């Protein structure tokens, strides 16, 4: 009886913790917005660097250089893009507002593997990863509960 109540309490506690991990809004980090300038080189079929990082509020300028044929860069979620031909770099500026991970795509059909020419823009800390790690930790804590129930 006592054991079962204890188990119930632990289960409820873990469930509440898990809900908290999932639902509590991410704290806003008070970082001063800065201007970021990134030179991105596009070649068949990759962006270099492939991952860009910024914090919410930052003004990001991307200068796109093509290293072989005409390429473009399109930032998913922000809907901004630019296209560069070899020898003619282009730059564009936008303000990042939404945090999260956004995909970069080539916006010009540049060759057979064009659909796989991708990059990433990460804005702000990766809360999804942090939450997933916390949930994984809770799952590890919950594991003995399940095991004991079966052996009991």
């Amino acid at each position, binding site marked *: 009886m006592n054991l079962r109540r204890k188990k119930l309490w632990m289960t409820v506690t873990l469930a509440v913790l898990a809900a908290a991990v999932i639902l509590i809004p991410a704290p806003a980090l008070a970082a001063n917005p800065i201007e970021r300038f990134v030179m991105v080189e596009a070649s068949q079929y990759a962006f270099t660097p492939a991952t860009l990082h910024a914090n919410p509020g930052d003004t990001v300028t991307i200068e796109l250089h*093509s*290293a*072989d*044929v*005409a390429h473009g860069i399109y930032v998913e979620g922000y809907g901004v893009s630019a296209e560069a*031909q*070899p*020898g*003619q770099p282009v730059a564009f500026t936008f303000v990042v507002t939404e945090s999260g991970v956004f995909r970069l795509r080539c916006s*010009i*059909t*540049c*060759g*057979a593997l*064009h659909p796989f020419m991708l990059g990433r823009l990460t804005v702000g800390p990766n809360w999804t990863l942090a939450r997933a790690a916390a949930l994984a930790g809770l799952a590890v804590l919950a594991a003995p509960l399940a095991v004991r129930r079966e052996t009991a």
Partner: protein
Amino acid sequence: MKQETLARLVVLALAGVASIPLISGPHTPLLHARLAEEGGWTPDVLHAEAGEPFALRLTSDDVLHGFGVGHTDIEPVLVAPGTVTDVTLTFDQPGTYTYYCTVWCGLNHWRMRGIIVVEGETPSTAPPEPPLYVQLAIDIDAPHPADVTPAVRPDAANAPDAAVEFSFEQYAATSPAQLFAEFSRQPGLKDLTDAQRWNLVAALWAGQTSPAALVEGEAIFRQECAACHGQLGGGDGLYAEALAEAGEAAMDELAGTHDMMIQAPPDWQDPAVLLGASPALLHGKMLRGGMGTGMPMWGALYTDAQLWNVVAYLYTFQLNSP
């Protein structure tokens, strides 16, 4: 038996209906764009009538290409895979027009060309004038190093006041280094310092063009030339090495028949290279292309006036223009 006759008639009728679009009237040609390595434009010769609207459908079989027509003010359009772009062109004058790819689609992008033969009444039969480099008997393949180079970058804004007659013909036929050498012998200009004489040369060069012309020249340079010649004319563009490698491989295959080497683009950041070239020589090189390199023939795409603007822009790599 009767049924069989009926069946034969039905089949014949169906075949007849199906063939109507094949024989009725002219249909709009569909132009396929492919990488030059895969065959370029198909078809690469089109026929049109002067003064008549000429409809054309464009599609790409691989990557994004562009369609532009030289010597006309037709706006280039993009040719994307999976879609068909409709264009209607009108040619006022009969002649042969070159269409070309306007998007850097690959190493051999500049080989993607085709022609439109426009038929019609030719108003005048005056033979075209030979280009200036031919008239001046300039060997555009000969080396042309400058004998003298300025110690500091010449600046047209600091030119001394000197009344010097300088016509377009003189400009076209003389390299800046030659003009400098000439000034060094002229009585009125002999006493100036070297820097002053170079500044005078820069001012005379600037006097042969205008800021608007330089802007147009720069735009063409960036679009067409920078990929091989480099954004600052250093001969270090992205494709310079790749073209040299590709050319070398081709030369190896031809070993024995052609004893020649692929040349890299010249370094115009070196005053000895650029200041030894006369405008007519540079104009001729653009017009004709070749030189055992990947240099395309621009005469088919750009008018003389446009090429002169590019020539004027090239000199700004060495001479400051106000």
